[in-house]
């Protein structure tokens, strides 16, 4: 059980943001992190350095996170604070970011666990050095809407009172045909967009060192009005970044699809598989 005395074990925890090489410990001035009052600092781990902050354990319980994950402004605050620390460190040296809310019960625990993984950290650091992550999202081309099959549409003449409720002969069949055409067109558009997504992924993969597919964002997100058919992320060497931008521009022109490029990101998505 958690006690209220600040000295009691368990009332504080160590939040770890990232790990980088020990040489050239990063400057962390002006970085506030996820908790107020306690500085973001370095924790030496032999050949590595962890970027850490002491936080109140009560703010990082299961329940606290359950609540936070449904409170968007709060979640955003934490995510951005985490990202800020990671970004500041990564701007100075190759950095392995840890997931949001990686915590240890005490400094020696963090030292022990992270120290045991130092070989993997070094592998990850080598892999991402001089590389950045770039996100590529593809959106289906805008649907032309419900028109385009005007020929099948019955002229809409106001009926006499006797006509009301008695559609002209053939109206039902025309309606069904219209529905069928519409569905077929939507299906075609969907298949076309998926094909474009595959093309984009294949082309970008050619200049990337590694790639990952993230889950496409559904309706309800910022871009909810557009259908996202690819949400992928790529590890790209720094010297090929300009090439990537040209490729995306070219793909946009060739396919007509909405293609968004974001980056450079700290290689969050490419540090786990080592």
């Amino acid at each position, binding site marked *: 059980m958690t006690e209220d005395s600040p000295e009691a074990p368990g009332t504080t925890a160590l939040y770890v943001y990232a790990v980088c090489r020990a040489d050239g410990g990063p400057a962390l001035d002006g970085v506030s992190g996820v908790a107020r009052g306690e500085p973001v600092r370095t924790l030496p781990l032999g050949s590595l350095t962890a970027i850490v902050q002491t936080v109140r354990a009560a703010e990082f319980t299961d329940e606290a996170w359950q609540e936070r994950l449904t409170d968007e402004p709060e979640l955003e605050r934490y995510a951005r604070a985490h990202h800020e620390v990671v970004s500041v460190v990564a701007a100075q040296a190759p950095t392995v970011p840890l997931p949001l809310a990686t915590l240890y019960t005490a400094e020696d625990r963090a030292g022990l666990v992270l120290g045991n993984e130092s070989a993997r950290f070094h592998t990850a650091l080598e892999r991402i050095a001089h590389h950045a992550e770039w996100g590529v999202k593809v959106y289906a081309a805008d649907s032309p809407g419900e028109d385009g099959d005007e020929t099948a549409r019955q002229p809409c003449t106001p009926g006499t009172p006797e006509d009301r409720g008695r559609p002209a002969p053939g109206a039902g069949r025309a309606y069904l045909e219209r529905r069928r055409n519409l569905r077929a067109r939507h299906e075609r558009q969907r298949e076309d967009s998926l094909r474009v997504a595959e093309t984009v992924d294949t082309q970008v993969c050619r200049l990337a060192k590694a790639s990952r597919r993230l889950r496409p964002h*559904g*309706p309800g997100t910022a871009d909810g009005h557009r*259908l996202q058919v690819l949400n992928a992320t790529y590890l790209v060497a720094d010297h090929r970044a300009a090439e990537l931008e040209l490729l995306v521009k070219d793909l946009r022109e060739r396919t007509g699809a909405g293609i*968004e*490029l974001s980056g450079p990101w700290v290689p*969050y998505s490419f540090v786990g598989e080592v």
Partner: protein
Amino acid sequence: MTHDAVPWDRPGALSGPIGVPLVDLLDRVLATGVVVSGDLVIAIADVPLVRVSLHALLSSVGERVPAPWADSGPL
């Protein structure tokens, strides 16, 4: 309609905490390949928990629009 790279707050740097869209940020800070496990994070950012909660928050994959791929990412 042109979609340029999502504008970073400070162009060119690996440091755009303000300009980064939240949804893209969460894709990364929550789903980043886990290198190590933390003491508390096991119960907190355990993948199923994150998946469920993010689904509620972002409706990452809506019922009406199934994910185009069966295996489409770590979230």
